[in-house]
Protein backbone atom coordinates (compact mmCIF):
# COMPACT_ATOMS: atom_id res chain seq x y z
CA UNK A 1 0.00 0.00 0.00
CA UNK A 2 1.12 3.56 -0.72
CA UNK A 3 0.11 6.82 0.95
CA UNK A 4 -1.82 7.98 -2.12
CA UNK A 5 -3.25 4.46 -2.34
CA UNK A 6 -5.00 5.16 0.98
CA UNK A 7 -6.68 8.16 -0.65
CA UNK A 8 -7.67 6.15 -3.70
CA UNK A 9 -9.27 3.48 -1.50
CA UNK A 10 -11.28 6.11 0.37
CA UNK A 11 -12.34 7.88 -2.83
CA UNK A 12 -13.66 4.59 -4.19
CA UNK A 13 -15.60 3.97 -1.00
CA UNK A 14 -16.83 7.45 -0.04
CA UNK A 15 -16.29 9.89 -2.92
CA UNK A 16 -18.81 12.47 -1.71
CA UNK A 17 -17.90 12.34 1.96
CA UNK A 18 -16.47 15.58 3.38
CA UNK A 19 -12.68 15.52 3.44
CA UNK A 20 -11.57 18.95 4.60
CA UNK A 21 -13.23 22.04 6.00
CA UNK A 22 -11.41 25.36 6.09
CA UNK A 23 -13.31 28.54 6.84
CA UNK A 24 -16.68 28.41 5.10
CA UNK A 25 -15.72 25.79 2.53
CA UNK A 26 -15.79 22.02 2.64
CA UNK A 27 -14.16 19.80 0.01
CA UNK A 28 -15.09 16.18 -0.62
CA UNK A 29 -12.78 13.25 -1.26
CA UNK A 30 -13.73 13.48 -4.92
CA UNK A 31 -12.54 17.12 -4.92
CA UNK A 32 -9.24 16.05 -3.40
CA UNK A 33 -8.83 13.24 -5.90
CA UNK A 34 -9.42 15.56 -8.86
CA UNK A 35 -7.09 18.26 -7.55
CA UNK A 36 -4.38 15.71 -6.75
CA UNK A 37 -4.77 14.33 -10.26
CA UNK A 38 -4.23 17.78 -11.66
CA UNK A 39 -1.04 18.21 -9.66
CA UNK A 40 0.21 14.75 -10.67
CA UNK A 41 -0.42 15.43 -14.36
CA UNK A 42 1.29 18.80 -14.11
CA UNK A 43 4.37 17.29 -12.49
CA UNK A 44 4.49 14.47 -15.03
CA UNK A 45 4.24 17.00 -17.85
CA UNK A 46 7.29 18.73 -16.36
CA UNK A 47 9.24 15.48 -16.40
CA UNK A 48 9.11 14.83 -12.68
CA UNK A 49 9.90 11.17 -12.32
CA UNK A 50 9.59 8.49 -9.69
CA UNK A 51 11.86 9.30 -6.78
CA UNK A 52 12.38 12.99 -7.69
CA UNK A 53 12.03 15.35 -4.75
CA UNK A 54 9.29 17.98 -4.75
CA UNK A 55 9.32 20.73 -2.10
CA UNK A 56 6.10 21.83 -0.47
CA UNK A 57 5.89 25.18 1.31
CA UNK A 58 2.38 26.10 2.32
CA UNK A 59 0.11 26.75 5.26
CA UNK A 60 -2.51 24.14 6.06
CA UNK A 61 -5.36 24.19 3.59
CA UNK A 62 -6.86 22.31 0.66
CA UNK A 63 -4.04 23.29 -1.70
CA UNK A 64 -1.49 21.68 0.61
CA UNK A 65 -3.33 18.38 0.57
CA UNK A 66 -3.80 18.44 -3.21
CA UNK A 67 -0.11 19.16 -3.70
CA UNK A 68 0.78 16.44 -1.18
CA UNK A 69 -1.25 13.61 -2.67
CA UNK A 70 -0.68 14.77 -6.25
CA UNK A 71 3.08 14.74 -5.84
CA UNK A 72 2.98 11.24 -4.39
CA UNK A 73 0.73 10.07 -7.21
CA UNK A 74 3.33 11.39 -9.65
CA UNK A 75 5.90 9.20 -7.92
CA UNK A 76 7.74 12.06 -6.23
CA UNK A 77 9.11 12.21 -2.71
CA UNK A 78 7.89 15.28 -0.85
CA UNK A 79 10.07 17.64 1.09
CA UNK A 80 7.64 19.35 3.45
CA UNK A 81 9.04 22.71 4.58
CA UNK A 82 8.21 24.57 7.77
CA UNK A 83 6.79 27.95 6.78
CA UNK A 84 7.96 29.40 10.12
CA UNK A 85 11.58 28.86 9.18
CA UNK A 86 13.57 31.74 7.69
CA UNK A 87 13.96 31.73 3.88
CA UNK A 88 17.62 30.72 4.05
CA UNK A 89 16.68 27.41 5.68
CA UNK A 90 14.28 26.69 2.80
CA UNK A 91 17.22 27.21 0.45
CA UNK A 92 19.27 24.70 2.44
CA UNK A 93 16.57 22.04 2.53
CA UNK A 94 15.74 22.38 -1.17
CA UNK A 95 19.39 22.24 -2.17
CA UNK A 96 20.27 19.43 0.23
CA UNK A 97 17.37 17.28 -0.93
CA UNK A 98 17.96 18.05 -4.61
CA UNK A 99 14.35 19.13 -5.09
CA UNK A 100 13.41 19.73 -8.74
CA UNK A 101 10.09 21.52 -8.10
CA UNK A 102 8.80 23.67 -5.24
CA UNK A 103 5.03 23.90 -4.86
CA UNK A 104 4.07 26.96 -2.87
CA UNK A 105 1.77 29.95 -2.71
CA UNK A 106 2.50 33.32 -4.29
CA UNK A 107 2.80 35.12 -0.96
CA UNK A 108 5.37 32.65 0.28
CA UNK A 109 7.22 32.45 -3.02
CA UNK A 110 7.74 36.21 -2.89
CA UNK A 111 9.80 35.84 0.30
CA UNK A 112 12.13 33.17 -1.07
CA UNK A 113 15.78 34.14 -1.46
CA UNK A 114 17.29 34.64 -4.91
CA UNK A 115 19.31 31.48 -4.54
CA UNK A 116 16.03 29.54 -4.70
CA UNK A 117 14.30 31.63 -7.33
CA UNK A 118 17.30 31.68 -9.64
CA UNK A 119 18.30 28.05 -9.25
CA UNK A 120 18.31 26.49 -12.72
CA UNK A 121 17.67 23.05 -11.28
CA UNK A 122 14.50 24.07 -9.39
CA UNK A 123 11.14 25.05 -10.81
CA UNK A 124 9.12 27.23 -8.41
CA UNK A 125 5.38 26.89 -8.91
CA UNK A 126 2.76 29.01 -7.18
CA UNK A 127 -0.57 27.27 -6.78
CA UNK A 128 -2.60 30.46 -6.58
CA UNK A 129 -2.86 33.81 -8.24
CA UNK A 130 -3.14 35.82 -5.06
CA UNK A 131 -0.44 38.21 -6.16
CA UNK A 132 -0.85 39.58 -9.70
CA UNK A 133 2.69 40.93 -9.58
CA UNK A 134 4.10 37.50 -9.10
CA UNK A 135 5.85 36.67 -12.33
CA UNK A 136 6.82 33.09 -11.71
CA UNK A 137 5.00 30.23 -13.24
CA UNK A 138 1.50 30.06 -11.88
CA UNK A 139 -0.17 27.89 -14.46
CA UNK A 140 -1.12 25.30 -11.89
CA UNK A 141 -4.04 26.79 -10.10
CA UNK A 142 -6.09 24.48 -7.96
CA UNK A 143 -9.77 24.73 -8.70
CA UNK A 144 -9.44 25.60 -12.36
CA UNK A 145 -10.03 23.16 -15.19
CA UNK A 146 -8.00 20.01 -15.20
CA UNK A 147 -4.85 20.19 -17.21
CA UNK A 148 -5.21 18.74 -20.68
CA UNK A 149 -2.38 16.68 -21.97
CA UNK A 150 -1.14 13.26 -22.77
CA UNK A 151 -2.55 10.36 -20.86
CA UNK A 152 -1.05 10.16 -17.45
CA UNK A 153 0.06 6.81 -16.22
CA UNK A 154 1.02 6.93 -12.55
CA UNK A 155 4.38 5.29 -11.89
CA UNK A 156 4.37 2.00 -10.01
CA UNK A 157 5.36 3.46 -6.67
CA UNK A 158 5.56 0.90 -3.88
CA UNK A 159 5.89 0.64 -0.13
CA UNK A 160 9.68 0.91 -0.31
CA UNK A 161 9.72 4.18 -2.25
CA UNK A 162 10.52 7.33 -0.33
CA UNK A 163 7.40 9.42 0.27
CA UNK A 164 8.47 12.19 2.60
CA UNK A 165 11.53 14.01 3.88
CA UNK A 166 11.05 16.09 7.04
CA UNK A 167 13.93 18.23 8.27
CA UNK A 168 14.60 18.32 12.01
CA UNK A 169 17.31 19.80 14.16
CA UNK A 170 20.41 17.65 14.45
CA UNK A 171 22.70 17.32 17.43
CA UNK A 172 25.50 19.10 15.56
CA UNK A 173 23.29 22.06 14.80
CA UNK A 174 22.85 21.15 11.14
CA UNK A 175 19.33 20.14 10.10
CA UNK A 176 18.81 16.53 9.06
CA UNK A 177 16.28 15.17 6.62
CA UNK A 178 14.28 12.28 8.09
CA UNK A 179 13.45 9.93 5.20
CA UNK A 180 10.16 8.06 5.39
CA UNK A 181 8.86 5.53 2.89
CA UNK A 182 5.27 4.93 1.87
CA UNK A 183 5.50 1.76 3.94
CA UNK A 184 6.63 3.69 7.04
CA UNK A 185 3.78 6.19 6.81
CA UNK A 186 1.08 3.66 5.96
CA UNK A 187 2.17 1.43 8.84
CA UNK A 188 2.08 4.26 11.37
CA UNK A 189 -1.25 5.47 10.01
CA UNK A 190 -2.80 2.05 10.60
CA UNK A 191 -1.21 1.77 14.05
CA UNK A 192 -2.56 5.17 15.14
CA UNK A 193 -5.97 4.57 13.65
CA UNK A 194 -6.26 1.32 15.57
CA UNK A 195 -5.66 2.71 19.05
CA UNK A 196 -7.57 5.95 18.43
CA UNK A 197 -10.45 3.85 17.05
CA UNK A 198 -10.98 6.39 14.28
CA UNK A 199 -13.89 5.91 11.89
CA UNK A 200 -15.46 7.74 8.99
CA UNK A 201 -17.65 9.56 11.51
CA UNK A 202 -14.65 11.30 13.04
CA UNK A 203 -13.62 14.86 12.32
CA UNK A 204 -10.52 16.34 13.89
CA UNK A 205 -9.96 20.03 14.55
CA UNK A 206 -6.44 20.48 13.19
CA UNK A 207 -4.33 23.39 14.45
CA UNK A 208 -1.05 21.55 13.86
CA UNK A 209 0.80 22.24 10.62
CA UNK A 210 0.76 19.38 8.14
CA UNK A 211 4.52 19.75 7.61
CA UNK A 212 5.00 18.68 11.22
CA UNK A 213 4.92 14.90 11.71
CA UNK A 214 2.06 15.11 14.25
CA UNK A 215 -0.03 17.25 11.86
CA UNK A 216 0.88 14.94 8.97
CA UNK A 217 -0.38 11.96 10.96
CA UNK A 218 -3.73 13.70 11.53
CA UNK A 219 -4.10 14.20 7.79
CA UNK A 220 -3.15 10.64 6.88
CA UNK A 221 -5.24 8.87 9.53
CA UNK A 222 -8.37 10.78 8.54
CA UNK A 223 -7.82 10.18 4.84
CA UNK A 224 -7.36 6.50 5.59
CA UNK A 225 -10.57 6.18 7.58
CA UNK A 226 -12.58 8.55 5.39
CA UNK A 227 -13.06 11.09 8.19
CA UNK A 228 -12.88 14.85 7.99
CA UNK A 229 -10.07 17.29 8.78
CA UNK A 230 -11.21 20.70 10.01
CA UNK A 231 -8.37 23.16 9.49
CA UNK A 232 -8.03 26.21 11.68
CA UNK A 233 -4.74 28.11 11.46
CA UNK A 234 -5.71 30.72 14.08
CA UNK A 235 -4.67 29.15 17.34
CA UNK A 236 -3.02 32.46 18.28
CA UNK A 237 -6.62 33.47 18.96
CA UNK A 238 -7.81 30.35 20.76
CA UNK A 239 -11.40 31.51 21.16
CA UNK A 240 -11.74 31.35 17.38
CA UNK A 241 -10.61 27.74 17.41
CA UNK A 242 -13.18 26.90 20.08
CA UNK A 243 -15.87 28.42 17.84
CA UNK A 244 -14.71 26.12 15.04
CA UNK A 245 -14.63 23.13 17.38
CA UNK A 246 -18.23 23.79 18.36
CA UNK A 247 -19.68 24.84 15.01
CA UNK A 248 -18.10 21.98 13.10
CA UNK A 249 -19.03 19.44 15.80
CA UNK A 250 -15.51 18.05 15.82
CA UNK A 251 -15.04 14.69 17.49
CA UNK A 252 -11.33 15.16 18.16
CA UNK A 253 -8.77 17.82 18.95
CA UNK A 254 -5.01 17.28 18.83
CA UNK A 255 -2.40 19.55 20.29
CA UNK A 256 0.97 19.96 21.91
CA UNK A 257 1.33 20.92 25.59
CA UNK A 258 1.33 24.67 24.94
CA UNK A 259 -2.03 24.38 23.15
CA UNK A 260 -3.57 22.81 26.23
CA UNK A 261 -1.85 25.29 28.56
CA UNK A 262 -3.39 28.16 26.59
CA UNK A 263 -6.82 26.52 26.34
CA UNK A 264 -6.83 25.91 30.09
CA UNK A 265 -5.58 29.36 31.09
CA UNK A 266 -7.04 31.73 28.52
CA UNK A 267 -10.30 30.22 27.35
CA UNK A 268 -13.44 28.73 28.86
CA UNK A 269 -12.61 25.39 27.24
CA UNK A 270 -12.72 23.45 30.51
CA UNK A 271 -15.97 25.06 31.63
CA UNK A 272 -17.97 24.26 28.53
CA UNK A 273 -19.72 21.05 27.55
CA UNK A 274 -18.63 19.45 24.31
CA UNK A 275 -21.28 16.93 23.32
CA UNK A 276 -19.57 15.98 20.06
CA UNK A 277 -16.00 15.78 21.32
CA UNK A 278 -14.84 12.20 21.77
CA UNK A 279 -11.13 12.60 22.49
CA UNK A 280 -8.23 14.99 22.97
CA UNK A 281 -4.79 13.82 21.96
CA UNK A 282 -1.52 15.30 23.10
CA UNK A 283 2.03 14.75 21.88
CA UNK A 284 5.00 16.91 20.98
CA UNK A 285 6.72 16.89 24.37
CA UNK A 286 5.87 16.23 27.98
CA UNK A 287 2.81 17.96 29.38
CA UNK A 288 3.16 18.91 33.04
CA UNK A 289 1.50 16.46 35.46
CA UNK A 290 -0.47 19.40 36.96
CA UNK A 291 -2.00 20.34 33.61
CA UNK A 292 -2.69 16.69 32.75
CA UNK A 293 -4.48 16.22 36.09
CA UNK A 294 -6.48 19.39 35.56
CA UNK A 295 -7.60 18.39 32.08
CA UNK A 296 -8.53 14.93 33.31
CA UNK A 297 -10.43 16.29 36.32
CA UNK A 298 -12.29 19.13 34.61
CA UNK A 299 -13.24 17.54 31.30
CA UNK A 300 -16.45 15.53 31.03
CA UNK A 301 -15.88 11.80 31.42
CA UNK A 302 -17.09 11.23 27.87
CA UNK A 303 -13.95 12.88 26.48
CA UNK A 304 -10.88 10.63 26.43
CA UNK A 305 -7.53 12.31 27.03
CA UNK A 306 -4.81 10.52 25.08
CA UNK A 307 -1.21 11.24 26.04
CA UNK A 308 1.14 10.09 23.29
CA UNK A 309 4.83 9.98 22.47
CA UNK A 310 6.75 9.81 19.26
CA UNK A 311 9.46 11.17 17.04
CA UNK A 312 9.65 12.38 13.47
CA UNK A 313 12.08 9.49 12.93
CA UNK A 314 9.22 7.09 13.75
CA UNK A 315 6.86 8.67 11.17
CA UNK A 316 5.11 10.18 14.16
CA UNK A 317 3.96 7.85 16.89
CA UNK A 318 5.62 5.30 19.16
CA UNK A 319 3.66 5.12 22.43
CA UNK A 320 0.35 6.00 23.97
CA UNK A 321 -1.10 6.03 27.46
CA UNK A 322 -4.45 4.22 27.42
CA UNK A 323 -6.94 6.71 28.93
CA UNK A 324 -8.17 4.28 31.58
CA UNK A 325 -4.63 4.18 32.98
CA UNK A 326 -4.12 7.93 32.94
CA UNK A 327 -5.12 8.57 36.59
CA UNK A 328 -2.60 6.11 38.03
CA UNK A 329 0.15 6.64 35.44
CA UNK A 330 0.29 10.41 35.09
CA UNK A 331 3.71 11.45 33.83
CA UNK A 332 4.15 8.27 31.80
CA UNK A 333 4.32 8.13 28.00
CA UNK A 334 2.48 4.83 28.32
CA UNK A 335 3.22 1.70 26.35
CA UNK A 336 4.21 0.94 22.77
CA UNK A 337 1.48 1.31 20.18
CA UNK A 338 0.47 -1.86 18.29
CA UNK A 339 3.26 -3.04 15.98
CA UNK A 340 6.01 -1.10 17.76
CA UNK A 341 8.56 -2.47 20.22
CA UNK A 342 9.97 -0.14 22.87
CA UNK A 343 12.86 -1.34 25.00
CA UNK A 344 14.79 0.55 27.65
CA UNK A 345 18.45 -0.32 27.22
CA UNK A 346 21.79 0.25 28.87
CA UNK A 347 24.74 1.71 26.96
CA UNK A 348 26.05 -1.82 26.30
CA UNK A 349 22.79 -2.78 24.59
CA UNK A 350 21.45 -4.98 27.37
CA UNK A 351 17.90 -4.48 28.60
CA UNK A 352 17.45 -2.42 31.77
CA UNK A 353 15.81 -3.87 34.84
CA UNK A 354 12.50 -2.54 36.12
CA UNK A 355 13.02 0.99 37.47
CA UNK A 356 16.50 1.31 35.97
CA UNK A 357 17.13 4.28 33.68
CA UNK A 358 18.36 3.67 30.14
CA UNK A 359 17.71 4.83 26.59
CA UNK A 360 14.45 4.10 24.77
CA UNK A 361 15.10 2.00 21.68
CA UNK A 362 12.22 1.71 19.20
CA UNK A 363 11.63 -0.82 16.47
CA UNK A 364 8.78 -1.29 14.02
CA UNK A 365 7.68 -0.78 10.43
CA UNK A 366 7.26 2.95 11.01
CA UNK A 367 10.95 3.66 11.74
CA UNK A 368 12.67 5.90 9.17
CA UNK A 369 15.23 4.74 6.62
CA UNK A 370 17.84 7.22 7.87
CA UNK A 371 18.78 10.86 7.40
CA UNK A 372 18.96 12.07 3.83
CA UNK A 373 22.52 11.90 2.52
CA UNK A 374 23.91 11.78 6.05
CA UNK A 375 25.33 8.40 6.89
CA UNK A 376 27.24 9.77 9.90
CA UNK A 377 24.15 11.08 11.71
CA UNK A 378 22.16 8.02 10.62
CA UNK A 379 24.76 5.71 12.16
CA UNK A 380 24.38 7.53 15.46
CA UNK A 381 20.70 6.66 15.85
CA UNK A 382 19.86 3.63 13.67
CA UNK A 383 21.28 0.31 14.83
CA UNK A 384 20.40 -3.34 14.26
CA UNK A 385 18.04 -3.20 17.23
CA UNK A 386 16.19 -0.12 15.99
CA UNK A 387 16.02 3.62 16.54
CA UNK A 388 17.96 4.96 19.52
CA UNK A 389 15.68 7.80 20.50
CA UNK A 390 18.04 9.73 22.78
CA UNK A 391 15.32 9.79 25.44
CA UNK A 392 16.28 8.43 28.86
CA UNK A 393 13.55 6.55 30.68
CA UNK A 394 12.65 3.73 33.02
CA UNK A 395 9.91 1.14 32.92
CA UNK A 396 7.74 0.57 35.99
CA UNK A 397 6.49 -2.78 37.28
CA UNK A 398 3.45 -2.60 34.96
CA UNK A 399 5.57 -1.94 31.90
CA UNK A 400 4.72 1.76 31.63
CA UNK A 401 7.55 4.01 30.48
CA UNK A 402 8.51 7.24 32.23
CA UNK A 403 10.91 9.64 30.52
CA UNK A 404 13.41 11.27 32.87
CA UNK A 405 15.69 13.17 30.51
CA UNK A 406 17.59 13.14 27.27
CA UNK A 407 20.89 11.59 26.35
CA UNK A 408 21.43 14.32 23.81
CA UNK A 409 21.45 18.01 24.53
CA UNK A 410 18.37 18.99 22.60
CA UNK A 411 15.79 21.51 23.79
CA UNK A 412 12.08 20.84 23.38
CA UNK A 413 10.55 24.32 23.13
CA UNK A 414 6.85 24.14 22.46
CA UNK A 415 6.60 21.10 20.24
CA UNK A 416 9.84 21.91 18.48
CA UNK A 417 13.07 20.03 18.87
CA UNK A 418 15.74 22.70 18.91
CA UNK A 419 19.49 22.26 18.70
CA UNK A 420 21.34 24.46 21.22
CA UNK A 421 24.36 24.23 18.96
CA UNK A 422 22.56 25.84 16.04
CA UNK A 423 21.55 28.83 18.17
CA UNK A 424 25.05 29.09 19.65
CA UNK A 425 26.49 29.11 16.13
CA UNK A 426 24.16 31.93 15.10
CA UNK A 427 25.03 33.99 18.20
CA UNK A 428 28.73 33.39 17.61
CA UNK A 429 28.38 34.99 14.19
CA UNK A 430 28.37 38.27 16.11
CA UNK A 431 32.03 39.30 16.18
CA UNK A 432 31.82 40.74 19.69
CA UNK A 433 30.73 37.39 21.16
CA UNK A 434 33.56 35.16 22.37
CA UNK A 435 31.55 32.28 23.84
CA UNK A 436 27.92 31.25 23.94
CA UNK A 437 25.96 28.55 25.76
CA UNK A 438 22.32 27.83 24.96
CA UNK A 439 20.13 25.55 27.04
CA UNK A 440 16.54 24.90 28.06
CA UNK A 441 14.91 25.75 31.39
CA UNK A 442 11.50 24.53 32.60
CA UNK A 443 8.63 26.68 31.35
CA UNK A 444 4.96 26.37 32.17
CA UNK A 445 3.76 27.22 28.68
CA UNK A 446 6.48 25.85 26.42
CA UNK A 447 7.75 22.88 28.43
CA UNK A 448 11.22 24.30 28.00
CA UNK A 449 12.20 27.90 27.31
CA UNK A 450 15.42 28.71 25.49
CA UNK A 451 18.05 30.66 27.41
CA UNK A 452 21.32 31.97 26.00
CA UNK A 453 24.36 32.95 28.05
CA UNK A 454 27.23 34.64 26.33
CA UNK A 455 30.60 36.17 27.04
CA UNK A 456 31.75 39.19 24.99
CA UNK A 457 35.29 39.39 23.63
CA UNK A 458 37.60 41.32 26.00
CA UNK A 459 36.93 45.03 25.92
CA UNK A 460 33.74 44.72 23.88
CA UNK A 461 30.19 45.34 25.01
CA UNK A 462 26.95 43.97 23.66
CA UNK A 463 23.33 44.26 24.68
CA UNK A 464 20.57 41.65 24.71
CA UNK A 465 18.55 43.40 22.04
CA UNK A 466 21.37 43.15 19.48
CA UNK A 467 21.65 39.42 20.13
CA UNK A 468 17.89 38.88 19.88
CA UNK A 469 17.58 40.91 16.70
CA UNK A 470 20.39 38.89 15.13
CA UNK A 471 18.59 35.68 16.15
CA UNK A 472 15.32 36.92 14.72
CA UNK A 473 17.03 37.59 11.39
CA UNK A 474 18.61 34.14 11.16
CA UNK A 475 16.42 31.71 13.08
CA UNK A 476 12.83 30.51 13.09
CA UNK A 477 10.71 32.40 15.63
CA UNK A 478 10.47 29.35 17.93
CA UNK A 479 14.28 29.22 18.16
CA UNK A 480 14.72 32.78 19.47
CA UNK A 481 15.87 32.68 23.11
CA UNK A 482 13.38 33.84 25.74
CA UNK A 483 16.24 35.32 27.74
CA UNK A 484 19.81 36.38 27.06
CA UNK A 485 22.33 36.78 29.87
CA UNK A 486 25.68 38.47 29.35
CA UNK A 487 28.35 37.04 31.64
CA UNK A 488 32.03 37.66 32.27
CA UNK A 489 32.72 33.92 32.10
CA UNK A 490 30.90 30.62 31.68
CA UNK A 491 31.02 28.00 34.46
CA UNK A 492 33.30 25.03 33.69
CA UNK A 493 33.25 21.40 34.70
CA UNK A 494 36.32 19.34 35.63
CA UNK A 495 37.22 18.74 31.99
CA UNK A 496 37.08 22.46 31.23
CA UNK A 497 33.84 22.28 29.23
CA UNK A 498 30.92 24.61 29.84
CA UNK A 499 28.93 23.24 32.78
CA UNK A 500 25.41 23.48 31.41
CA UNK A 501 23.92 21.94 34.56
CA UNK A 502 25.11 24.92 36.59
CA UNK A 503 23.62 27.32 34.05
CA UNK A 504 20.30 25.46 34.02
CA UNK A 505 20.01 25.53 37.81
CA UNK A 506 21.03 29.21 37.95
CA UNK A 507 18.49 30.39 35.39
CA UNK A 508 15.58 28.03 36.07
Amino acid at each position, binding site marked *: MTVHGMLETTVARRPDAPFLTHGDHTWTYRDLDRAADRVARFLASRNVERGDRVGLLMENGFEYTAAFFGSLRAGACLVALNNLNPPESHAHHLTDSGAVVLLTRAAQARRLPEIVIDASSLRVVALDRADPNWELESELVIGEDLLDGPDFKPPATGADDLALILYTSGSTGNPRGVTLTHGNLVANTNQIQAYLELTADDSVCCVLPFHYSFGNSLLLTHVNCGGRVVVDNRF*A*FPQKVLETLEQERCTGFSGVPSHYAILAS*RTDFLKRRWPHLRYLSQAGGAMSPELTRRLHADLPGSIRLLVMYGQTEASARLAWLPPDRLPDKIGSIGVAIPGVTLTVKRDDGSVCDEGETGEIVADGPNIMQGYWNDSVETAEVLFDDGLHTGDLAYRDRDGFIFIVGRAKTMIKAGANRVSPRQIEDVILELEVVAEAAVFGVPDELLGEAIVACLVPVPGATIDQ*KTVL*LHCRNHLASFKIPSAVHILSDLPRNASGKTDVRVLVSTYS
Partner: protein
Amino acid sequence: MELKAQIRDFVIENFLFGDQAPLSDDAMSLLDNGIMDSVGVMELVGFLEGDLFLEIEDVELVPENLDSVDNLVAFVTRKREVRTA
Protein backbone atom coordinates in the same frame (compact mmCIF):
# COMPACT_ATOMS: atom_id res chain seq x y z
CA MET B 1 3.17 58.67 25.95
CA GLU B 2 0.43 58.51 23.33
CA LEU B 3 -1.38 55.15 23.32
CA LYS B 4 -0.46 54.23 19.74
CA ALA B 5 3.21 55.00 20.38
CA GLN B 6 3.10 52.94 23.55
CA ILE B 7 1.65 49.93 21.71
CA ARG B 8 4.06 50.31 18.78
CA ASP B 9 6.92 50.48 21.26
CA PHE B 10 5.83 47.25 22.90
CA VAL B 11 5.51 45.42 19.58
CA ILE B 12 8.83 46.72 18.26
CA GLU B 13 10.75 46.06 21.46
CA ASN B 14 9.27 42.67 22.33
CA PHE B 15 8.62 41.04 18.98
CA LEU B 16 11.07 42.82 16.68
CA PHE B 17 13.86 43.58 19.15
CA GLY B 18 14.08 47.22 18.13
CA ASP B 19 13.85 46.76 14.35
CA GLN B 20 10.98 48.99 13.18
CA ALA B 21 11.16 48.03 9.51
CA PRO B 22 8.84 44.98 9.55
CA LEU B 23 6.06 47.04 11.18
CA SER B 24 5.55 49.21 8.14
CA ASP B 25 1.84 49.76 8.57
CA ASP B 26 -0.26 50.09 11.70
CA ALA B 27 -3.11 48.23 10.02
CA MET B 28 -1.02 45.17 9.08
CA SER B 29 -1.74 41.81 10.67
CA LEU B 30 0.88 41.01 13.28
CA LEU B 31 0.14 37.32 12.91
CA ASP B 32 0.08 36.96 9.13
CA ASN B 33 3.30 38.95 8.81
CA GLY B 34 5.21 36.79 11.24
CA ILE B 35 5.61 39.54 13.84
CA MET B 36 3.69 37.71 16.56
CA ASP B 37 2.87 34.05 17.19
CA SER B 38 0.52 32.32 19.64
CA VAL B 39 2.99 32.70 22.51
CA GLY B 40 3.39 36.35 21.51
CA VAL B 41 -0.36 36.87 21.88
CA MET B 42 -0.04 35.72 25.48
CA GLU B 43 2.82 38.22 26.01
CA LEU B 44 0.67 40.93 24.46
CA VAL B 45 -2.14 40.12 26.87
CA GLY B 46 0.38 40.34 29.72
CA PHE B 47 1.31 43.83 28.50
CA LEU B 48 -2.32 44.96 28.28
CA GLU B 49 -3.07 43.63 31.75
CA GLY B 50 0.22 44.49 33.46
CA ASP B 51 1.23 47.79 31.87
CA LEU B 52 -2.08 49.23 30.74
CA PHE B 53 -4.04 47.88 33.73
CA LEU B 54 -6.85 46.37 31.68
CA GLU B 55 -8.77 43.22 32.48
CA ILE B 56 -8.91 41.11 29.34
CA GLU B 57 -11.73 38.62 29.06
CA ASP B 58 -11.02 35.32 27.31
CA VAL B 59 -13.63 36.10 24.67
CA GLU B 60 -11.75 39.27 23.80
CA LEU B 61 -8.74 37.31 22.50
CA VAL B 62 -9.73 37.72 18.88
CA PRO B 63 -7.91 39.23 15.89
CA GLU B 64 -10.44 42.03 15.67
CA ASN B 65 -9.03 43.30 18.99
CA LEU B 66 -5.40 42.23 18.94
CA ASP B 67 -4.05 41.56 15.45
CA SER B 68 -2.76 45.01 14.44
CA VAL B 69 -1.60 48.19 16.09
CA ASP B 70 -4.76 49.94 14.90
CA ASN B 71 -6.99 47.17 16.27
CA LEU B 72 -5.15 47.30 19.58
CA VAL B 73 -5.51 51.08 19.87
CA ALA B 74 -9.24 50.85 19.15
CA PHE B 75 -9.66 47.97 21.59
CA VAL B 76 -7.79 49.66 24.44
CA THR B 77 -9.66 52.90 23.83
CA ARG B 78 -13.01 51.08 24.01
CA LYS B 79 -11.99 49.28 27.19
CA ARG B 80 -10.95 52.54 28.83
CA GLU B 81 -14.19 54.23 27.83
CA VAL B 82 -16.22 51.42 29.37
CA ARG B 83 -14.18 51.64 32.56
CA THR B 84 -14.67 55.39 32.96
CA ALA B 85 -18.35 55.35 31.96
